[in-house]
């Protein structure tokens, strides 16, 4: 049922400075030019990852490549698809731009494609070894890994029993 070994881009909110370099890198990688100047002056820059900032606190929010993806359930054409390797990909030639996926993803990670009636979302950069956002992050606030391996590095949580109400 689930593809547990999928590699995903995971944000580490303590490290994030809110510099938005990941957004820039994503927009360049997914433009037709793959060049910073052309992307922003001639292309239609669109980043799939969005840095959420609230005061001093920030993190880069991107598609979770869910095990039971809301967007895939909602897609009325089958254009939104979960691959065997766990990636959730939209096949643009099947997509009719109904935006059922846009309204269904609780992370707001699928959006209308800039300039055309299609859905657009993170594809984990199939042309690269490391997704562009991860490579661009100067603060190691994004890692690209499988869930299990990452858990291994996480600091232990303080387990204070606490009852409220």
């Amino acid at each position, binding site marked *: *049922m*689930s593809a*547990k070994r*999928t590699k*995903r881009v*995971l*944000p*580490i*909110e303590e490290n994030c400075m809110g510099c938005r370099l990941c957004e820039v890198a994503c927009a360049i990688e997914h433009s037709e030019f793959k060049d910073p100047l052309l992307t922003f002056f001639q292309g239609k820059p669109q980043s799939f990852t*969005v840095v*959420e*900032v*609230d005061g001093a*606190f*920030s*993190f880069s*929010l991107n598609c*979770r*490549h*869910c*095990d*039971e993806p*809301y967007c895939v*359930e*909602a897609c*009325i*054409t*089958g254009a939104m698809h979960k691959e065997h390797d766990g990636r959730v990909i939209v096949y643009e030639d*099947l997509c*009719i*731009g*109904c*935006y*059922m996926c*846009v*309204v*269904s*993803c*609780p*992370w*707001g*990670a*699928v*959006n*209308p494609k800039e300039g055309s009636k299609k859905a657009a979302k993170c594809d984990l950069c199939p042309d690269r070894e490391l997704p562009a956002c991860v490579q661009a992050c100067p603060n190691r606030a994004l890692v690209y890994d499988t*869930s*299990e391996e*990452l*858990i291994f590095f*996480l600091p232990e*949580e*303080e*387990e*204070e*029993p*606490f*009852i*409220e*109400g």
Partner: protein
Amino acid sequence: MAKYLIAGNSVAAVSAIQAIRSIDADGEIVVLSPERITAYCRPLITYILAGDVEEWRLPYKRESFYQQNNVKVLYGVALEGVDTEKRVAYLSDGDTMPFEKLLLAVGGKPFIPPIENVEGPDVYTYTTVSDMNALRERLAEIKRVVVVGAGMIGMKVAEALKKCGKEVTIVELMDRILPMVLDRKGSEFAERALDKAGVSYVLGDSVVGIHRDASGRVKQVELKSGTKIDCDTVVVAVGVRPNLEPVKDSGIETNRGIIVDDTLETNVEGIYAAGDCAEAYDIILGQKRPNLVWPVAYRQGFIAGLNMAGYRRRYVGGFPINSIGFFGFQVCSAGMSAVEDEVNGSFEILTYVDEEKGVYRKAVIGNNRLLGFAVIGDVRRAGLYTGLIWSRMDVSYFKDKLVTDVSFPEAIYPLEGALPAMNFSSRKSIRRFGWAVFPYSYRRLFTGYSARIEEICAFDEKGVCLYGGDDDQG
């Protein structure tokens, strides 16, 4: 004897097949498909009529899907009745079929209101491929169409027919377009798009009769107000109701739909229902009701399939989610988005209007929870609202941003103030409570992906989380 008998061959059936096969690799699955076609993308029939989408894209699953999953499909065979005692299904070809587990995924039936002379040629409903083919066959001779009902299907059919060059008039009983989704203000945006496209519409009136000429062909419709509209074709699209015919007098409990519990089982053990025909829990209303939309049908089919195969998984609930666009107008909505006034103060309504850009956002809040929303024009990140409905989290402390901003980190990573009273096991998860959080930390969810928001955020009356943890989820 079929181990799993599935009546219906659409999205709920497909996801049930996938779920069953993820657990039981060889149990025999038999699917009844009265329509002689593999599961198809039902909403595409309006796009194909309009010529926007090629016909080869209609199938949702192809023959290979059934072969790979080792599923036997009986085309042209419908379920006509169920004997719950003997556990046999009566089929339309005269056969009977004993079953171990039965899934009712028989979908919905278009409702036809009492209209004089509605029976006869030139009057159509529009929910199946055969409806599409029937309309397409006559397309060349159609000139003027009256579409009855300005709901989702009505608007999509109107758009398709307009694109085919027909003169279209929409008649709607309520005072607005898409009455289940939009309020008056939202409807104004839709009306503007219709005006621009040259589609006429009559609101607050209904069709009471159809006038036919001597040979029985449609020539006019008559409205309640007395107005008469000339036309040669009528499309009735006032809504779809759960299809209850196959379970009539079978002892399976029905109300508006087939009533199911939180494993999608009916009152009869081993008989399940999912999709448009089912009446399951709605987390916004807090009671059972049919939700006739695609994502709900998919989810219910999936959970029913798991439970049929013996893997217990709870259906937390659903709510209507929709997205529709026509003539350049686009709206995304979920839940109770059409609520017009703040009834006895039990609802709070937030709106944001930007007439210039054609943007309208509306959120309906009750008891500090988001109960519904509609976004028109700019639908970027509309899903964040859906996430807030799933999580039922307190939105009162970032209400000011809710409709003005398309980014609200609070939704994903809320601060301490927003916490409902409930039991927690760790202080850290308190700070990090939100739909992405409980009962694991925020990061735990980002790493333990199997969890669904509605499952980690489901609590019983005492505030105890019902989520059993990742181990419970397979």
